[in-house]
């Protein structure tokens, strides 16, 4: 029974956290947890490596800032200089304050959108993708923990789950 998994259902995020901590304490590794909403601190409790999404977001922000700078220089200085409010557009630096709101907005726009797209790609989410969560109730109000098991530890893990408030425990053949 090498490729079998345990599916444990929880009804409360605090109880789920407690079970995750209990399992980790006993050195059992958890494959995946499916939640109806993000649970604060769950990634840390599961021992997942720290997300690098923030770093990509910072870099995307820099890209946005550069694009905005280039864009405003092209539009307002090079391609079609206009005299707005008695401020002729001959030099980027002299007109820079007027472009700051655009530079700011483009930074935010790039950082936010590209970060979301990165997140989707990293989580392997795209249109018409078939849902991976094994139980539809995890889209409503239940939490599901998936743990791969073998003959030696299945009993021990199931006991820990039971002690820590799992409302259902199922043994399933892995696909």
């Amino acid at each position: 029974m090498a490729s079998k998994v345990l599916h444990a259902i929880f009804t409360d995020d605090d109880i789920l956290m407690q079970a995750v901590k209990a399992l980790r304490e006993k050195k059992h590794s958890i494959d995946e947890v499916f939640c109806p909403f993000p649970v604060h601190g769950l990634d840390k409790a599961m021992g997942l490596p720290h997300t690098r999404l923030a770093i990509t977001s910072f870099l995307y922000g820099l890209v946005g800032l550069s694009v905005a700078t280039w864009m405003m220089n092209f539009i307002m200085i090079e391609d079609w200089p206009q005299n707005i409010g008695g401020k002729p557009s001959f030099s980027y630096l002299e007109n820079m304050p007027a472009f700051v709101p655009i530079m700011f907005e483009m930074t935010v726009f790039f950082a936010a959108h590209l970060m979301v797209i990165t997140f989707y790609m990293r989580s392997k989410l795209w249109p018409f993708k078939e849902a991976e969560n094994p139980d539809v109730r995890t889209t409503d109000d239940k939490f599901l923990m998936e743990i791969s098991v073998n003959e030696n530890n299945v009993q021990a893990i199931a006991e820990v789950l039971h002690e820590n408030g799992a409302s259902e425990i199922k043994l399933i053949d892995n696909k």
Partner: protein
Amino acid sequence: MYTMSNKIKLFSLILIIIGAIGLVVSFINAPSSVEEVKEMLHAESASHGGESVAMVGDDHASEDAHADEHAEHVYHQLHNKPWAALYVPALFIFLISLGVFVFYALQNAAQAGWSPVLFRVMEGIASYLVPGGILVYLLLVLSSLHLNHLFVWMDPEVVAHDEIIQNKTAYLNTPFFLIRAAIYIIGWVLFSKLIIKNSRKMDEGFDLSLHKRNFKLSAGFLVFFIVTESMMSWDWIMSIDTHWFSTLFGWFVLASILVSAVTTIALVTIYLKGKGYLEYVNNSHIHDLAKFMMGFSIFWAYLWFSQFLLIWYSNIPEEVTYYAARLQDYPVLFFGTVILNWALPMLILINSDFKRINWIVVFAGIIILVGNYLNFFVMIMPGTVGESWSIGIPEISSILLISGIFIFTVFNALAKAPLTVKHSAFLEESKQYHY
């Protein structure tokens, strides 16, 4: 229980003594008459060489009159200089302690769970409200007695020839000004005394009615504060450039106050933690303070730029003179504050892990405090000393004097009560706080 170490007592006393000596020297060195300034300017232009030779034109009489006018102008600036040098840190550090108390009241009003282990630190810093308030009020009274010309609208001769100020005298007149200042300071001190007294009483045992009373008092204080803070910033800072006004000035000053206040809380907390006190404070608390430092830095930059952009773009003479004076005479400081108060703190503190490392938070904190002192400097100096500014003996010794008084008061107050509150509705949550 914390006891003030002899080292810090000595340190603050040395600061006070050096500062006081420097300040007395700079008051003595300030020119006492227009003649003295004329001689000084003469010596200066002589040392510059040919400059004055080129100025010798055909119309000698008007030339002389102009030189006289200029000498008087410079005399007023140099006469103001030590006063303004003292006024900037006196106001800045007083407003830091006010900002700390505001932050404390915010924790109470928001029923925050992370911060109760830091309450005593905030209460300690807020204790400077009394000496700081007295000092600022004293300076305002001395200004109104015409010992200096920090507030040009206080001079009846100036007002007699200035229609714009005449239209403002219903609000900007000396008695009303002093009454308002008294109301602000007494109001802030009273609220702080009441709320801190309740917090100390809570050490004897948890009392829900005290908790509720402090919640209501804090909420009331915040309402009182946001109105008085805005008016305070018009009165004590904006009225220096009497003709000019900005509708977001109160917010701009508030941003500066808040970021310096949170930074001061972080610095004092890290200091005490380094001495082995505050056993319940962990790096998650420091992380939160650093988040506020970074957030308020960006808030400051947002308001700085909002104020600048509109005035720069519309380019209306009566508004833009405010920035013209700063760009002409204070270009390095003017743009330097943006680097010190926004660019550096943001880039240093943007990394989540860095916000948990004490020395990085201290490093960013020192940058923020220096930057915000310079922010007050750039707000106050152009209208009082103009192009005669410098950062020399009067400025540095005033900073030493005031920060000496501040450090002595704060650490003295910290020693008066246990450094962690004994009972608070959210104390347990704060002790367990981990992010």
